[in-house]
């Protein structure tokens, strides 16, 4: 028999909240975000959740779906429902604001801590920097550049859970793309920011981030790159600025 109704358990309230069950009609090509939107529009307008683009670009719709973090706008119910049931909760490893909304401040603050900002070295009076598309550095940066900041990797990472200071896969991936940017002038300080027990050396290479990243990036690989890059600190005894 075809299942034409989904049983959906949705997290309600803050950290001390609980799951509430809703029945949602099953549709063709239905996404998890469609399900949440249906509940908010038809069943309970007080449900809080976050989304913007609905097409996998903005990174705001990530939630925990049947136990794993996912971008909900591009996750089809077909792929994740088990026996017609869905369990939807806010992203893990972040404080809950309310219902399905997680507080992403710490997640983004860590990008800044990992020196995820571009440090310019030229002015507009200078010539353009020429970066060859086939150069090793450009290819390394390309491999990590498409991150949409959704926080899925961060929610999936066990080390983030164990060590609240750990910068996490997304921030370190960002740092690695900049570490390969020939135009950037903040390399030394960045290397120091990402080394150490809050940084790349804490990664256990478990690859949950890489497994679940919706953009198919490999933060694990970027983090290995950073580890190798920090050899400079050891060999040359470089100090931070």
């Amino acid at each position, binding site marked *: 028999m075809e299942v034409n109704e989904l049983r959906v358990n949705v997290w309600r309230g803050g950290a001390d909240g609980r799951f509430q069950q809703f029945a949602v009609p099953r549709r063709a090509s239905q996404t998890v975000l469609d399900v949440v939107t249906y509940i908010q529009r038809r069943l309970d307008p007080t449900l809080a959740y976050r989304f913007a683009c609905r097409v996998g670009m903005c990174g705001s719709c990530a939630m925990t779906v049947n136990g794993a973090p996912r971008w909900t706008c591009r996750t089809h119910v077909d792929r994740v429902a088990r026996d017609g049931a869905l369990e939807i909760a806010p992203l893990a490893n972040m404080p809950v604001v309310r219902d399905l909304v997680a507080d992403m401040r710490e997640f983004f603050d860590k990008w800044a801590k990992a020196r995820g900002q571009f440090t310019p070295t030229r002015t507009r009076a200078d010539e353009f920097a020429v970066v060859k598309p086939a150069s090793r550095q450009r290819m390394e940066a390309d491999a990590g550049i498409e991150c949409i900041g959704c926080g899925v990797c961060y929610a999936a990472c066990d080390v983030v859970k164990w*060590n609240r200071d750990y910068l996490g896969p997304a921030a370190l991936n960002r740092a690695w793309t900049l570490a390969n940017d020939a135009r950037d002038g903040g390399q030394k300080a960045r290397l120091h920011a990402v080394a150490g027990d809050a*940084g790349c*050396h804490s990664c256990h290479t478990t690859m949950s981030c890489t497994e679940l990243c919706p953009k198919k990036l490999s933060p694990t690989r970027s983090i290995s790159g950073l580890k190798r890059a*920090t050899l400079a600190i050891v060999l040359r005894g470089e*100090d931070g600025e």
Partner: protein
Amino acid sequence: MSARREARLWVVQRASAALLAFCVAVHLVTIVYAVRGGLSAAEVLSRTRGNFAWMAFYALFVFAAAAHGSIGLRTVAMEWLGWKKSTADLLMWFAASGLAGLGAQAVYAVVRP
């Protein structure tokens, strides 16, 4: 400084892992070779006594195991037991010196002429 220290420990951890891969392989082959036709203390000692090559090999093995194991314990203590870094560092040095000391004693016992 934390960054450099952690980076150093990471290098030692990597390097000792590589050494261990080599040492464990040699060790396993030696075991298979040594037990063919029965294992006796006399036979083992006849091979190792006064043999400088075996002494160097096992000293290296002990050194790599002590370094690798103790750095690993430090991480486990911090991540799973929530120990402060300074306490975990003490554990690391304690484990490293204990393992190195016991290992050195064992090496000396089998190679001493």
